[in-house]
């Protein structure tokens, strides 16, 4: 059956803005529940056959992401500075969104992540809050996400995980050399490494074939459909209902509301530049933690308390690399095969808020390694550098940290007063500085990363310095979830407090960011929100 095409004048049940990790889930859930859905996606509709191992296009020419040349953003550390043009945010810009180009680490948040304020108390200089929902409320949807998308892992292997109602649907991926070394070092130190849960198929699953270990996961699209993106796993199901249209290359500029305050349509640009208005009974906004608040600000919607865009949380992870005697060949297979959560919990005895997870990885494809991966105390070009790189590329392993980031009101997404994008719309302005405790947590984790590398036998270890985040692919917190309409943007069901037929379902509703790796939580929230939206719609309560 060829997918349905609606006319812009058709009053569809839902317009979903963004076909990514969250939008793909919502599209599949609402269309299979019988609703008529149009998904507007700013990026192209690529298929597995379109993806490549082309590092130049993918990592240096924005083939799959927001293009800084067309979608610049400005950046400043504090609200009293004038922002300068400087790219600091990255998101996937294609059907499937971040679920196509992510590393595919698939971590649940821990039960305590939802109630850190109650457990730890207030943190000075930040606005740490409990979530309005608990881990137990989200747990069925974590399981649902793992089974619908296809996740490989070993239930019970992480002693710090919350309770689970189901095991993973697929066994873990084979361990790589970087995972063996990580496990060896971590166990020597008395830690608890476990097989990485990943949204990659270790075995064939629901008509998709298993991973063949080609090694180009992070930032790339999977040519085998073995990475469990919404593009591979859910969007085909949504389209097969005959009720869901994926309308790619549609750049939304405004969500429109009527005199009654309800939203009734979405304005977007076609590739030709022509403006189109799609009518809808309700809108589900899934455009990511930066584009979602930007669109609400451009539409002047859902922001009666002025909090849209605030509490931006980014990803303060750091890599530590080590040179080993023998070949690791970390360029093969998935990125990370071992993880540990021993330092995840915020421990007041450390004297600061926060913690992190660690995973095993070298983290660089060849050109990126040559450009940025070699030890900074050695030559960066010329004969000696060239002689070293052959050994370093194959013999390097590493440990990456995934660190907490405190929510702070002044860290925000706003509209730049001067800078415009290629469509003439106000560019995103990012204001961001880490809380001092984020930096302390980064340093604490970095010391642990170095210990693990030494314990696993590294001949030489090198790292980047701890500093405030200035570039991130994790974009979270900017339309906070909460029970109090004065202090949050969406309610506990991801519904706008202000606009009853507007739902906001993506990284922006996260109250805290766990220890990064937010995709599974974003998708679990999307399943839960979609479940509720479908019930409301059936009862005529939207």
């Amino acid at each position, binding site marked *: 059956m060829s997918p349905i095409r609606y006319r812009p004048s058709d009053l569809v049940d839902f317009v979903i803005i963004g076909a990514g990790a969250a939008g793909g889930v919502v599209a599949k859930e609402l269309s299979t529940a019988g609703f008529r859905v149009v998904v507007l996606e700013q990026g192209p509709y690529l298929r*597995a*056959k379109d*993806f*490549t*191992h*082309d*590092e*130049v*296009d993918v990592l*240096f*020419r924005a083939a799959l992401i927001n293009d800084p*040349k067309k979608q610049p953003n400005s950046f400043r550390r504090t609200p009293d500075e004038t922002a300068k043009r400087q790219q600091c945010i990255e998101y996937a810009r294609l059907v499937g969104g971040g679920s196509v180009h992510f590393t595919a680490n698939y971590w649940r948040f821990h039960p305590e992540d939802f109630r850190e304020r109650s457990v730890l108390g207030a943190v000075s200089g930040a606005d740490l809050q409990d979530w309005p929902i608990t881990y137990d409320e989200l747990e069925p949807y974590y399981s649902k996400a793992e089974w619908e998308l296809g996740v490989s892992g070993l239930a019970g292997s992480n002693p710090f995980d919350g309770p689970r109602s189901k095991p993973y649907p697929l066994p873990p991926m*084979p*361990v*790589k*050399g970087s*995972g*063996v*070394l990580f496990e060896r070092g971590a166990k020597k130190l008395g830690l608890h490494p476990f097989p990485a849960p990943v949204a990659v198929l270790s075995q064939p699953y629901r008509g998709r074939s298993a991973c*063949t*270990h*080609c*090694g180009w996961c992070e930032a790339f699209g999977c*040519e*085998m459909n073995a990475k469990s993106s919404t593009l591979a796993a859910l969007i085909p199901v949504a389209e097969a209902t005959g009720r869901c249209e994926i309308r790619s290359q549609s750049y939304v500029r405004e969500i429109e509301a009527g005199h009654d305050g309800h939203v009734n349509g979405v304005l977007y640009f076609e590739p030709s530049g022509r403006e189109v208005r799609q009518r809808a009974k309700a809108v589900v906004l899934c455009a990511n933690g930066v584009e979602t608040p930007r669109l609400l600000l451009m539409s002047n919607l859902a922001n009666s308390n002025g909090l849209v865009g605030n509490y931006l949380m980014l990803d303060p992870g750091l890599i530590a690399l080590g040179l*080993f005697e*023998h*070949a*690791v*060949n*970390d*360029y*093969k*297979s998935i990125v990370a095969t071992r993880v540990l959560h021993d330092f995840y919990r915020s421990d007041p005895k450390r004297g600061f808020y926060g913690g992190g997870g660690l995973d095993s990885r070298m983290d660089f494809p*060849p*050109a990126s390694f*040559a*450009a940025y991966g070699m030890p900074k105390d050695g030559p*960066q*070009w*010329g*004969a000696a550098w*060239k*002689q070293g*790189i*052959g050994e370093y*590329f*194959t013999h390097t392993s590493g440990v990456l940290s995934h660190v907490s980031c405190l929510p702070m009101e002044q860290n925000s997404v706003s509209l730049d007063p001067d800078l415009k994008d290629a469509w003439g719309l106000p560019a995103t302005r990012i204001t961001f500085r880490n809380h001092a405790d984020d930096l302390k947590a980064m340093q604490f984790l970095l010391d642990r990363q170095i210990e693990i590398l030494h314990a696993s036998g590294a001949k030489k270890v090198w790292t980047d310095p701890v500093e405030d985040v200035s570039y991130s692919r994790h974009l979270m917190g900017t339309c906070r979830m909460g029970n109090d309409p004065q202090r949050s943007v969406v309610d506990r069901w991801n519904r706008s407090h202000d606009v009853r037929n507007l739902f906001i379902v993506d990284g922006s509703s996260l109250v805290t960011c766990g220890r990064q790796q937010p995709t599974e939580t974003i998708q679990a929230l999307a399943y839960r929100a979609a479940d509720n939206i479908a019930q409301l719609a059936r009862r005529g309560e939207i």
Partner: protein
Amino acid sequence: MAAACWAEVLRAQKPSRRFEYFDPGTAAEVEAIAESIIPGDSMPGAREAGVIWFIDRALAGYDEDKRAIYRSGLASLQVKRAEVVPGSTTIVGLSPEHRTAVLKTVEDTEFFRLVRLHTILGFFGHPKHGGNRDAGALKLLGMETSMHFQPPFGYYDREEK
């Protein structure tokens, strides 16, 4: 899927005949800088890998907006060259030692950082962009490319089995 594999592209790759952006004189100067960044030895260097063709295509296309950095960077570099090696007339005409000495004086500039990145992308990047001829990067890195690898992937996971 096959389109992803370098071998396929390499078989189809034909040497370019004509620059799209550079004049031949400028190309020779830039190529000499690239060759100092990745010099040929027992393994191919930037010249043999055809890095200059990558840079030419980049400046003719995606990095069109970076032409000014090349223009002004090359002009300053020529001034440095005349200071460091009096009597010299071109960068390509310098001995490798002299060229390295001249480039050391500019290695913290935006220009040099860009040429270094372009050289690396041309050398290690996908051959379809004009560089990485004969898969020199794979030889240098000891890297295989394939859509299908089987564990063990290296020494340590083999040892573990």
